């Protein structure tokens, strides 16, 4: 059944763009009847969500709606109280998805201050893959900072190192927990472009938790609105990439924003 489902997914992919299908390294995620409690507090309740391989999904909602918890559950940082999250590789059906295929980018970069920028991106990586990290640093525009300490970088540069570190493991799923929230507007735009570009190139599945509705419309294929642990609404973003802020963009942004405010 899952196989059928995934075949269907890849067909829908071809309609979007062919290039994405070629390197769809991503993994599909199926969430079924997910519950999460902290003591008596219900954070997520009976949540069902299917995410296609290579899809870019944004999760929006007010503070405390459970969006970060959902991300942490998908990241396997926490265990669900009930329910199940299934991961499935799109290209190789028999291949399992393990923790090593999932990488998280946190709100703050969480770099190790006692390691150089390059050593940070190599954290937990096998030695033979080290040269790969140098290419990634070049891609995020920090090749000349490889031997610097993280404390010598600006906030945006640190977050770019964190992005390179996450991608150095060639993940099939990249989870982004408001990684751009603390950056200034200009740096944020640059980072959005960078994330989109790398997502295009590497074909991982991306899930972005954000407060910023505009950012969600800018990046996502689909926007999920979460309210008190439920999925309240889902928006498909049928806008051509790279996205420009035209009338259709603004209209959708307005629509999502109103829905968020109504929760």
């Amino acid at each position, binding site marked *: 059944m899952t196989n059928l489902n995934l075949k269907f997914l890849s067909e829908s992919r071809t309609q979007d763009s062919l290039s994405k299908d070629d390197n769809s390294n991503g993994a599909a995620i199926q969430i079924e009847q997910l519950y999460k409690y902290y003591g008596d507090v219900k954070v997520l309740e009976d949540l069902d969500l299917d995410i296609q391989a290579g899809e870019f999904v944004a999760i929006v909602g007010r503070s405390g709606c459970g969006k970060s918890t959902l991300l942490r559950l998908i990241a396997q940082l926490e265990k669900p109280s009930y329910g199940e999250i299934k991961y499935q590789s799109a290209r190789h059906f028999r291949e399992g998805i393990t923790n090593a295929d999932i990488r998280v980018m*946190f709100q703050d970069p*969480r770099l190790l201050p*006692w390691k150089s920028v390059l050593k940070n991106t190599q*954290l*937990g990586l096998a030695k033979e893959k080290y040269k790969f990290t140098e290419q990634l640093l070049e891609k995020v525009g920090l090749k000349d900072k490889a031997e610097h300490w993280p*404390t*010598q970088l600006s906030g945006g540069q640190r977050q770019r190192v964190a992005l390179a570190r996450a991608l150095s*493991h060639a993940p099939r799923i990249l989870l982004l927990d408001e990684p751009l929230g603390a950056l200034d507007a200009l740096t944020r735009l640059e980072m959005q472009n960078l994330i989109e570009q790398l997502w295009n190139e590497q074909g991982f599945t991306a899930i972005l938790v954000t407060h910023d509705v505009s950012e969600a419309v800018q990046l996502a294929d689909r926007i999920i609105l979460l309210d008190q642990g439920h999925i309240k609404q889902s928006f498909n973003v049928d806008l051509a990439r790279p996205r420009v802020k035209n009338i259709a963009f603004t209209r959708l942004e307005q629509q999502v924003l109103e829905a968020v405010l109504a929760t």
Partner: protein
Amino acid sequence: MTTQNVSRGTQRIFTNLLPWLFPILLIVIWQVASSSGLLQSRVLPAPTAVVSAFWHLLISGELWQHVKVSAGRALLGLLIGGGLGLLLGLLNGSSRIASTLLDTTLQMIRNIPALALIPLVILWFGIDETAKLFLVAVGVFFPIYINTYHGIRSVDPQLIEMGKSYGLSRWQLYKEIILPGAMPSILVGFRFSLGLVWVLLIVAETISAQSGIGYMTMNAREFLQTDIVLVGILLYALLGKLADVFAQILERYLLRWHAGYQK
């Protein structure tokens, strides 16, 4: 232009010399007071007498012999006490069971001043080397233990979570994140212990010894050789300063990633 440079240069020499003005003045007054007979050599010998005593001890090789013995005791005591403190600090910092089992006991013992143990130590070990080493080891144990314990406990849990989600093994987590994270605190304990080591040694060497700076000083007191007593006191100051400089260099190297140590 050049006159300005010159005046700036003299100004710098002036600010560099200023801290030494008072000590030099003091020594001059001291010398004058001794030479004029105002200050009896039984109370305080002339600075020149101290220098000449130092010179004689140095030539005869006696000084080197005593310094070697004292420094050996300091080093060995530090190694034993500090090593145990580090080990127990690491253990209790990392394992909740160990800390519940041991920490209360250690905190209780900590409140006993090491020097209060002298009568007991003499009864246990007599007056030979073991007694002195024991005193030094007990004294330096606690600063290192407490700072290591506290350092491990205060490692940023977000970094540990990141490490776990990046697939680090327990040993890697320890080596890459926990130990370097605790290092600033461990070094504070180390530096504190280095200061303490000499205090403990002075007392330990004055109770009963056949060698060492303390013995040299006490022996000189018997014969009213105030110049040698002063040499001994100044030697402790010198060795203490040397140890502190060494600790500073070590700190600057190990914490070179820290913003506070970057130029």
